[in-house]
């Protein structure tokens, strides 16, 4: 493999991987405050992309993306308020089935609103043939946008959770919900907020990746599976490890294309998911003891 091809694969892997990491972080945010795996996480990414595409002809691109992110956040909050907030000690099985149902409804609604066609946002700078040269290989500037914006999301999130009082309250919720309630934190609002937050970052990721990967009504399931793979790889609930795991999966996937037919690319990540679930369900970076204390 030439070094140029190697770098091509590497950049492709990184840009996909960081998207997976964002979806995984979305999973983690909701999981940490509620103990729920939100199976509709991938649909947020799809919605963000779709709404931005619809708004784009009428509005400048940055504004369209901002509105799309806000709209998705509202949808995320509504989902929590309508379907989850009022349930009294629901079982895990019940929650799984509800979020699966939500993901189906969002997907079917998208199908009826936007149809089956594959859509895309325009490239943020230039067009599909614009390229810039890095280390002697040609990369689309959109790849840099993806990597840049996603890194920014990760940085902002870690700042948010460490240094703002809202972020600290959310962490308190995830550490011990009962204790947090006793300290006067409104845990219910925290849960709603966690849905908003993960819907928002999902939607933003959906917008930046749309020019390269395109957006289609049923793209969510695949992303959800891969995001979940990454979340598990990193250890459920651990967002920094999710970034490392995301990059790892993205790069493995990108390089697998050189050995296996494209059609099997998705099978690879799912196989990784199955293997990791069987061998180390607490994740590559997680500890078994800590995983034992988590709720499933």
């Amino acid at each position: 493999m030439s070094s140029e091809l190697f770098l091509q694969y590497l950049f492709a892997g990184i840009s996909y991987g960081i998207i997976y990491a964002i979806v995984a972080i979305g999973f983690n945010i909701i999981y940490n405050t509620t103990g729920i795996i939100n199976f509709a996480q991938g649909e947020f990414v799809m919605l963000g992309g779709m709404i931005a595409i619809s708004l784009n002809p009428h509005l400048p691109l940055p504004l369209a993306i901002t509105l799309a992110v806000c709209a998705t956040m509202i949808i995320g909050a509504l989902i929590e308020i309508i379907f989850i907030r009022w349930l009294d000690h629901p079982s895990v099985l019940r929650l799984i089935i509800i979020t699966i149902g939500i993901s189906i409804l969002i997907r079917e609604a998208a199908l009826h609103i936007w149809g089956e066609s594959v859509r895309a946002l325009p490239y943020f700078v230039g067009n599909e043939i614009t390229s810039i040269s890095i280390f002697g290989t040609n990369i689309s500037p959109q790849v840099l946008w993806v990597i840049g914006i996603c890194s920014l999301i990760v940085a902002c999130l870690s700042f948010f959770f460490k240094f703002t009082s809202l972020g600290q309250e959310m962490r308190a919720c995830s550490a011990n919900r009962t204790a947090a309630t006793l300290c006067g934190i409104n845990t219910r609002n925290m849960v709603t907020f966690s849905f908003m937050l993960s819907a928002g970052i999902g939607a933003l990721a959906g917008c930046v990746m749309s020019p390269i990967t395109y957006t289609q009504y049923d793209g969510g399931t695949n992303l959800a599976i891969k995001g979940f793979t990454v979340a598990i790889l990193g250890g459920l609930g651990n967002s920094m490890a999710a970034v490392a795991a995301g990059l790892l999966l993205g790069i493995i996937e990108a390089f697998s294309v050189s050995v296996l037919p494209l059609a099997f690319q998705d099978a690879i990540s799912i196989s990784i998911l199955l293997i990791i679930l069987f061998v180390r369900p607490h994740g590559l970076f997680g500890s078994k003891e800590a995983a034992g204390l988590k709720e499933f």
Partner: protein
Amino acid sequence: MGLKKYIPIPILLLAVVAIQLTTHYTETPFYLTQLTMSAYYALLVTGLCLVMGYAGQISLGHAGFFAIGGYTSAALTTFNFTPVKDHAVLRFFDKFHLLMTTEDMFGDILLNFHPWAACVIAIIVTIIIAFAIGIPVLKLKGHYLAMATLGFGIIIYRIVLATEFFGEADGISEVPGFNVLPGVSVNGDFDARIQNYYIAWTLVTIGLVLLLNLIHSRVGRALRAIHGAEDAADAMGVDTAGYKLNIFVISAVFASIAGIFLTHYNGGIGPSEAGVMKSVRYVAIVAIGGMASLWGALVMAVGLSFLSLRGMFGSYDDAVFGAILILIMLFAPDGLLRLHYLDKVKRFFRKTEDIS
């Protein structure tokens, strides 16, 4: 004691016959086609009902087992093995008269597996895969189990979609009929419609009797105990992991048999049968039927599959199942037939029966 559990069986058989006669006299025999297909889906769903309702495990990969059965049988009975007929493996099968030759319309000799052989091989393949998947997967709980079985389903879907042997996006068509017994054939021919309706429902009845026996046996009790309090079942000597695995494999075999028969009946199978939405749909039906209610699962499977196959839901097919799923889980997590007041009525009847 003992025979009470069979009481609904004659009622079911009467209903099956009554429906057939009704379609005969109202001259609407075309309904039988969908009722036959619904019966096969019901076979799969009742098997899944045991895994979900009795052992308390979720499987989002049962369409995968349906596809394994259907595709294996379809491929073995349609793929022309003539070019490789001298291969040792084929010679081995030929020795036991498991292969058959037919002549196509151009006079070429086609070498295929006999449907019975294909059927048995498909079931064996299903059992092997179900064990291989079940051993690691069933160690997982809750979200992890859901995702792992979902992942398994997607892998099967991707494999049939990407493999030439399985016809890629077109699936496999022109699957021959399946002569179950001399003169009794599973196929989609117009004049075999009534016969097939009864074949399908006979199969469902047999399946139901087997499952009813199982849930009223020592094993069924142990499975319900696992669902009721897993560690306490373990402490009473129930091999919880082994039981979960066995029931998972049994339900996979049910799904596989449904896949085999429906494929021969339809004369083909496509990748959509392996899709995630199908698995979700089966889970939805079990949930609506009341999780731990075989009869609920059966009624809902036939009813909903029939409406769906008749195209009642139009382009909102999947959306309808999604909506039903959410509504049931929000408002009646014990299933539609198990709303609280119904339960009380049922308990009332149970008491009176016990006294008599």
